[in-house]
């Protein structure tokens, strides 16, 4: 047996056995970690080390936008145009919704899904329309989301669409532990999808149930992708991040109306710059009886409901 022993005190048998076990173990570990290699499709090193939105220099931002365009092209086979729209000076967005005119057709809901590249399956909808009994109580607990009559409007009810109210005192921003969501100078509360850790505190804090979480990887047919994208707006999100209505930031910061305003067949939805006295929202706030939802919680929404004749 002495002939089996090498100089460092290891026999051939023990060497073979140990090396077999070790190499098998190493192979098993490598095989076990193999799925991580596919993670590269989702999280590149550049993305992993990307800085916070507010700390990105213009050059870094350009590189980030180009990287996002590459990623979307790789995933959907079509190259989008991703921009970082900045808030305008002297602009504060306000929304007004005429509850007398709204017929509950939900066209706004689906125009929003198409414009903002929300997941189609499961479908993420920023707007939900409540069918409320017209009994004078204005009790949201009596609202029904799942109405599906043959024809709307129905008698004896009114319809109240609810989406992000872009509060001036937003509880969702206060609770975010990583400051991945904040209020912009033009009043839009935005989310940095690369900074969000998916803790869903903001969803719990929102009194209007306006935030949506990507529980699964979003699925969007490539031919339905809206290619006019913005960093803080409608670029494709991924599993595990929060998203919300951002007043169609890619449209409104380019001077256009949000998709829900344009599609509304009854003209119930009104949008504009409250700092401009000639805007339609200024007129509505001056001349109509407006109300905000859950005024008692002190969130100071920029989303006003009103009735008229």
């Amino acid at each position: 047996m002495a002939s089996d022993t090498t100089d460092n005190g290891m026999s051939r048998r023990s060497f073979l056995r140990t090396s077999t076990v070790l190499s098998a173990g190493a192979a098993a570990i490598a095989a076990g970690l193999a799925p991580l290699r596919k993670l590269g499709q989702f999280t590149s090193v550049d993305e992993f080390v990307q800085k916070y939105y507010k700390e990105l220099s213009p050059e870094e931002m350009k590189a980030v936008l180009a990287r996002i365009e590459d990623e979307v092209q790789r995933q959907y086979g079509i190259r989008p145009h991703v921009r970082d729209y900045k808030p305008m000076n002297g602009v504060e967005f306000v929304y007004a919704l005429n509850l007398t005119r709204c017929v509950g057709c939900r066209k706004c809901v689906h125009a929003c899904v198409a414009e903002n590249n929300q997941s189609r399956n499961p479908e993420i909808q920023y707007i939900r329309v409540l069918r409320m009994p017209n009994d004078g109580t204005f009790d949201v607990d009596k609202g029904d989301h799942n109405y599906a009559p043959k024809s709307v409007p129905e008698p004896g009810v009114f319809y109240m669409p609810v989406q992000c109210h872009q509060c001036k005192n937003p509880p969702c921003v206060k609770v975010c532990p990583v400051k991945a969501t904040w209020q912009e100078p033009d009043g839009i509360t935005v989310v940095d999808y690369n900074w969000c850790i998916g803790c869903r505190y903001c969803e719990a804090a929102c009194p209007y149930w306006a935030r949506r979480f990507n529980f699964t990887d979003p699925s969007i047919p490539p031919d339905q992708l809206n290619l006019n994208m913005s960093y803080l707006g409608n670029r494709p999100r991924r599993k595990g991040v929060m998203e919300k209505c951002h007043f169609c930031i890619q449209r409104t910061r380019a001077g256009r109306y949000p998709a829900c305003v344009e599609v509304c067949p009854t003209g119930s939805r009104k949008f504009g710059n409250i700092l401009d006295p000639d805007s339609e929202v200024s007129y509505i706030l001056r001349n109509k009886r407006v109300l905000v939802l859950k005024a008692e919680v002190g969130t100071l929404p920029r989303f006003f409901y009103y009735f008229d004749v």
Partner: protein
Amino acid sequence: MASRGQGQSLDSVPSRLNPNPNTSIVLAILTAGFVVLAYSFARVPARPGVVSRPLLVPPGALAIVPGTVRISAGQLMKSGGDVSGLDCYACHHKESPPEVKFDANHRIVLPREHADLIISMRNCAECHPPNDPVKLDYDASGNVIVPAAHQGLLSMAHGHTLRNNNCYNCHDRDQLDQLHTPDGAALKFEQATLLCASCHGPTYRDWMAGAHGRTGGYWDRKAGPIKREECASCHDPHAPAFTGLIPMPGPHPLHPLPRTPAPSVSNDHGL
């Protein structure tokens, strides 16, 4: 793996890598565990996106979305089936424009999903040239006889009590494509909005301020034009009330809510 005898023989020869038979057993178990892990990782797809999920949105649901546009019968008839200039593309793709069909009476055949599309009769002159004005026929009780081609297109239902049903309340008695207000001021057809305003003052005031009616285009006047609609773009002057619309599909959460929830449990967040 290692038999007791081999282990004892190894004990006599101290190995730096494998000093103890128990270590071999632990290593063997770990190896087996990793192999099982690797196998199970290989079985489960890496991308959750490719896991086949049941369709929560029924595939046909979005195909029966009703049109939102309100276009005039004249526009549609004159188009002869080519609707490329009309606003059908809120839903239709430009590459596959909708097909317009006519029946034997030259009436437009509306598909089922467009049953609520409003086709308004708003301008006779779109089809009837001004030098060949429309001749009206009256029945014994003095009501206008609507020709077959216009049946269903022209229904008189103006006002809550439907009492504003006399053509000449708004139209000129001799030339139907001329209008006049109740106090006699003559208006051209293109000024129909002013005619509406002569009775619906507060609504006209709201419309002028942008608070009534459909809006599109640019809120920022410096960036581009705002898109407004005149009264007759949305309301058929002869029957201005909106008819019903087919509602689009409701929410599709990951775990669908019961069809019609009890009101007290219909929502989780007090809304």
